[in-house]
């Protein structure tokens, strides 16, 4: 008994889940978007109407469509296999589009089950059903287009105030919402007619066992359901009342039309319809009428693909599950669930393993993702640290450079002071020596002393010590350049390196001649030699090249 209740609860949960995730938001979303949901009348009456129609369809009126097998009472394992296959098919097709088709998956699963139990399908009925699946969205789109064109303001028509026209449309939306709620509950409730919970032998208790988990599930997923519904209302249906009225009416009318058996007269059949597919079809119809895109083409295509995939997956999965459960035509409906306990447990075990594996892979993927994030963060930190250390190095080099410059300036100052005192001493000595020359009476001695003085002055004019100091300082100041020059062109002589240094500092040939104690002509020759050694062409600029080293 406990196992029976548990399985019934499980079936109920599995069946309610895709409906809550996919079907209901597509029905309630347009109602909320139109503003009809804000009315007290709608808030109270709509759920009553929906549940009432659902109950009537489930228990009151038998569905004529015989594409569904007539489940014998107490055949819980069969029901379990079908619901499980539906859920799996919906879960897979939801990967293509969230606007999927739960009723199609269910009917597909039923067809798969029937293939196993009866070995064949009623192909006429199957074709009629598939035709109805194609016709229903088309009809919904055409109805929506017609209604949208009808309520669109026409130029030249008597103008009505926005408040009045919107009020009329709101009234229309409220009525259309009632129509949609009633018709969709009636249509989708036909699926419930094949959940014979009341015939399990305990009547209301079984019904309660089935209804309570579904209700609990609804309460548990209510926040997520609200978010999904608001997403539909706010993102997909963010437009004015006219198109919304068209969507609501078209969906309601399509549900109504496909809930009655008279469709068989036109070669179709009454069948449960998916709300998301109808919603997108209605939006496409409104887009056609208003010549504006109310829905993205890609979304439409994905939804259509998902709707096509759903029943195929349902058939395949249910067929496989039924084979595992060893459902044979003789067994179907005659063997109690006790006889199938072992295969049921096997299926449950497979599902549990699949679920655990899926969870494991999901967790692993998440871990990998986190690892990647961590790695990228580490990389970012590393890059930041690298930049920081580069900045530190640069700061240190700048500091060193500044210290060097300071040292040079200090030395310059000292040299300047020393130079002044040296110059003074030298001038004094020149003065003394000239006085001495003047005091000499012998002309030969006078000439000799004058020659000595002149040679001393000439020697002084060569600036040998100052020049050495200058080069030494220049060496320190342009240490990096000299190093690079030596590395790049090791065959340069000392005087060529000096010339390069002076050219880099922007001295003209005339100054260089003075500084190097050579003639300007020699400077030109040295420049030519330097150009040759640096491998420059005639068009290349020597100074620019040296500066670029």
């Amino acid at each position, binding site marked *: 008994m406990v196992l029976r209740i548990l399985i019934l609860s499980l079936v109920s949960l599995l069946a309610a889940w895709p409906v809550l995730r996919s079907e209901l938001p597509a029905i309630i979303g347009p109602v909320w978007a139109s*503003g009809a949901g804000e009315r007290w009348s709608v808030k109270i009456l709509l759920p009553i109407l929906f549940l009432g129609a659902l109950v009537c369809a489930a228990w009151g009126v038998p569905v004529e469509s015989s594409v569904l097998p007539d489940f014998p009472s107490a055949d819980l394992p069969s029901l379990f296999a079908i619901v499980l296959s539906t859920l799996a098919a919906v879960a897979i097709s939801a990967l293509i589009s969230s606007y999927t088709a739960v009723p199609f998956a269910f009917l597909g699963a039923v067809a798969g089950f029937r293939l196993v139990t009866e070995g064949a399908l009623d192909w006429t009925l199957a074709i009629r059903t598939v035709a109805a699946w194609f016709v229903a969205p088309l009809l919904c789109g055409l109805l929506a287009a017609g209604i949208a064109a009808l309520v669109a303001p026409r130029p030249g028509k008597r103008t009505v105030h926005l408040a009045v026209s919107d009020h009329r449309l709101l009234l229309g939306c409220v009525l259309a919402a009632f129509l949609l709620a009633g018709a969709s509950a009636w249509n989708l409730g036909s699926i419930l007619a094949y959940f014979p919970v009341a015939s399990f032998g305990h009547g209301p208790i079984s019904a309660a066992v089935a209804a309570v988990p579904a209700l609990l599930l609804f309460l548990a997923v209510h926040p997520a359901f609200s978010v999904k519904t608001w997403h539909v209302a706010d993102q997909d249906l963010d437009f004015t009342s006219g198109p919304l009225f068209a969507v609501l009416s078209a969906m309601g009318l399509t549900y109504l039309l496909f809930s009655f058996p008279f469709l068989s007269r036109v070669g179709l059949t009454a069948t449960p319809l998916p709300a998301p597919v109808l919603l997108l079809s209605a939006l496409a119809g409104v887009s056609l009428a208003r010549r504006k895109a109310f829905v993205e083409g890609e979304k439409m295509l994905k939804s259509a693909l998902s709707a096509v995939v759903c029943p195929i997956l349902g058939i395949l999965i249910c067929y496989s599950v039924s084979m595992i459960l060893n459902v044979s035509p003789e067994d179907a409906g005659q063997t109690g669930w006790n006889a199938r306990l072992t295969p049921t447990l096997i299926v449950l075990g497979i599902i549990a393993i699949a679920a655990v594996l899926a969870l494991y892979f999901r967790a692993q993927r998440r871990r990998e993702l986190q690892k990647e994030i961590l790695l990228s963060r580490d990389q970012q930190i590393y890059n930041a640290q690298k930049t920081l250390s580069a900045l530190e190095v640069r700061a240190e080099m700048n500091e060193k450079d500044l210290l060097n410059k300071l040292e040079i300036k200090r030395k310059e100052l000292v040299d300047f002071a020393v130079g002044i005192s040296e110059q003074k001493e030298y001038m004094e000595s020149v003065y003394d020596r000239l006085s001495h020359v003047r005091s000499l009476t012998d002309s030969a001695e006078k000439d000799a002393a004058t020659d000595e003085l002149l040679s001393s002055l000439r020697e002084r004019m060569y600036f040998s010590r100052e020049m050495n100091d200058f080069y030494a300082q220049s060496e320190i100041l342009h240490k990096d350049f000299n190093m690079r020059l030596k590395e790049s062109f090791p065959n340069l002589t000392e005087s060529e390196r000096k010339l390069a240094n002076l050219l880099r500092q922007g001295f003209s040939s005339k100054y260089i001649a003075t500084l190097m104690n050579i003639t300007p002509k020699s400077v030109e020759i040295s420049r030519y030699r330097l150009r040759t050694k640096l491998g420059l062409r005639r068009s290349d600029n020597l100074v620019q090249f040296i500066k670029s080293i």
Partner: protein
Amino acid sequence: MKLFEIFSTKKAFRFVESVDKLLNNVDTALIIFKDGVRCYLYNDMEGFAENLSTMAKLEGEAGALRREIENSLYSRGTLIRYRGDIMRLLERFDHIFTIMSNDLIQFEIEAPNVPQELKKEFMKLADLATTAVETSIPGTKAYFTDPDKVSETTHRVYFYEKEAVKLAQSIKRTVFHDMQLKLSEKFHLRYFALHIEDLSTAAVKVAEQLSVMAIKRGL
């Protein structure tokens, strides 16, 4: 009964009435503002005081109407897809009321010394600024009845605003370049020219809002 009030159009018509009343109030306030400026410039202080009190009364009435409209929009679930835009539009009109009322009060408190040769210019500026707002009123009415006609009025608002800006600049140029006034007086006049000019800027904001709303109505 609350359940069946959806079938009643009484509230929709009351909303229409409130909006029309509010727009009429704006229209009246513009006339009062223009007259108030004229009274001040030509030393009719009695008339000015009367205009000031009428303006305060109109502002109060407009505030009450705005709240009533807000209440009907949000608590009764009418115009669900338009209410945010409509409220923004009404707030812009409320801002226009505030500008007009503040301007008249500032004229009264600060009593700026307007030289004789500038009085005509100031009057013309007030005329242009109020015309810009006036032009936006038919546009607003058109939004509710025939949104295609909104664009016909908005370009006129832009035109009057441009003219008002040009005139305000000319007044400021005259004040600062050609007139022998104290710097404080020059600042004072510039300040008032700027405030009257603000009215036309507010009208442009209404026109911009209307343009967006008209596009949205087509969706």
